[in-house]
């Protein structure tokens, strides 16, 4: 199976690899997946309290090239978006952007899950209720 050029590019030059201070009140951390499944994604967002805009996003991923590319792309898309806008990122947008084949759709689902988990972590830290999401379909 050949990878798309965009996947290869994100794999070779991943954007926003790193770690934000998870103890900070304006950082939300999402850790999804499991080592047994061969994919673990940690995605972090830093939110400007005043504007509600995501000013920074970082990731670290254990997984295949598509998982790495999905999380790299997700961090790119998150930066500059408001938290509410970020919630609208759909895994199928990632599939389309990266040309992921059907067997790799779960990578994009994981990235979407990671975004939601990070947002909920941020919300809970700031006294807001966690949003209940529907169970992801794939997995």
């Amino acid at each position, binding site marked *: 199976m050949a990878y798309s050029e965009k996947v290869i590019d994100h794999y070779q030059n991943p954007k926003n690899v790193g770690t934000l201070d998870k103890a900070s009140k304006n950082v939300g951390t999402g850790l999804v997946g*499991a*080592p*047994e499944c*061969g994919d*673990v994604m940690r995605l972090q967002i830093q939110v400007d309290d005043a504007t509600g805009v995501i000013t920074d996003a970082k990731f670290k991923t254990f*997984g295949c*090239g598509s998982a790495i590319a999905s999380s790299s792309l997700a961090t790119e898309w998150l930066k500059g978006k408001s938290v509410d806008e970020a919630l609208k990122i759909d895994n199928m947008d990632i599939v389309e952007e990266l040309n992921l084949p059907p067997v790799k759709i779960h990578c994009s689902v994981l990235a979407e899950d990671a975004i939601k988990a990070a947002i909920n972590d941020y919300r809970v830290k700031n006294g807001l209720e966690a949003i209940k999401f529907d169970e992801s379909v794939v997995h």
Partner: protein
Amino acid sequence: MLKLPIYLDNNATTPVDPVVLETMLPYFSQHFGNAASRNHPFGWEAEEAVDYAREQVAKLIGADPKEVIFTSGATESDNLALKGVFEMYASKGNHIITAVTEHKAVLDTCKHIEKLGGEVTYLQVQPDGLIDLKELEAAIKPTTILIAIMYANNEIGTVMPIKELSTIARKHGVLLFTDGTQAVGKIPVDVNKDGIDLMAFSAHKMYGPKGVGALYVRRKNPRVKVTAQMDGGGHERGMRSGTLNVPGIVGFGKACEVCRLQMEEDTKRIAELRNYLETELLKIEESYVNGSREHRLPHVCNISFKHVEGEGLLMGFNKNIALSSGSACTSASLEPSYVLKALGLGDDLAHSSLRFGLSRFTTKEEIDYTIKAITDTVNKLREMSPLWEMYKEGIDLNTIEWAAH
């Protein structure tokens, strides 16, 4: 001069040795006869070539040429041995003993036999990949007709104690079938010294062509018979009908001859390269060899690099190096290698494994390139692995409640 890409997936298949190819070529359009045509020179030539190849194949494994049944490959040979014995010895019993680390061609055939009313015991293996002989002996019962244990494993290269297995089988009057696909041509295999009753093997794993293999069927002490699984012209002593693949068989014969003559020299050189590769790769922090290092094929090693995922790792260099991973991220099931799991490896380590299969044609330059590429990629991926970061922070990953998905 280093030529890319480098091929280190020789457990999947090997290139045809140029000497083998040359031997095969005249049998496509010049000596194209049907080996079963008894009444003209075209048939005679083909038959003669097949007879000669049968001798070459038999010699490699210490068998009589009459004991070699040509097939389309190891999968067919596995099917013929298991189903053929199950049918032929139905009046004696219906129980077969095998192991969980066998190739799918054996495991799935056993599953099929279970549906037909057979009973199959799947032995677990020890952490080094070897089966426990006591456990094997304890599993034998009055209805046991066959023990089916591979000679060497295709993922980790572990070599089973075949001689000890056959001693137990003989003691209880049970037949021993072994899938010798990865072992024949690579290490000394002798059906008489090893006490093997049936053995499957294939040309394309030993520098021969694809689409041809053999089943060794013992003719005396004891005389073993299998029920044919394909009906037709009664070729191969009635055990395998179908016009013989003459060019393939000729190539198979030549490949066996070359393996027999070069085995000692090849093994020594390849084992040195493998050991060098392994020593260098084990210098990477948190890397582990899977399976027995002592009882192992000389050209294979399987290594897990903790906290990086195998497929992601392959992507770092798979344009230039052909390797296999124990991670099955591409399959719908997301299940990693069942062989590695049977060793007791956690799924995370199974996902982090690479299998290296060297060949007669592997060079030191290729191994040097591979060592560097893998070391660099492991380091790069660990920099972006959350598991590696947690491990470095001293967090026990088992204490984390992972969201199952």
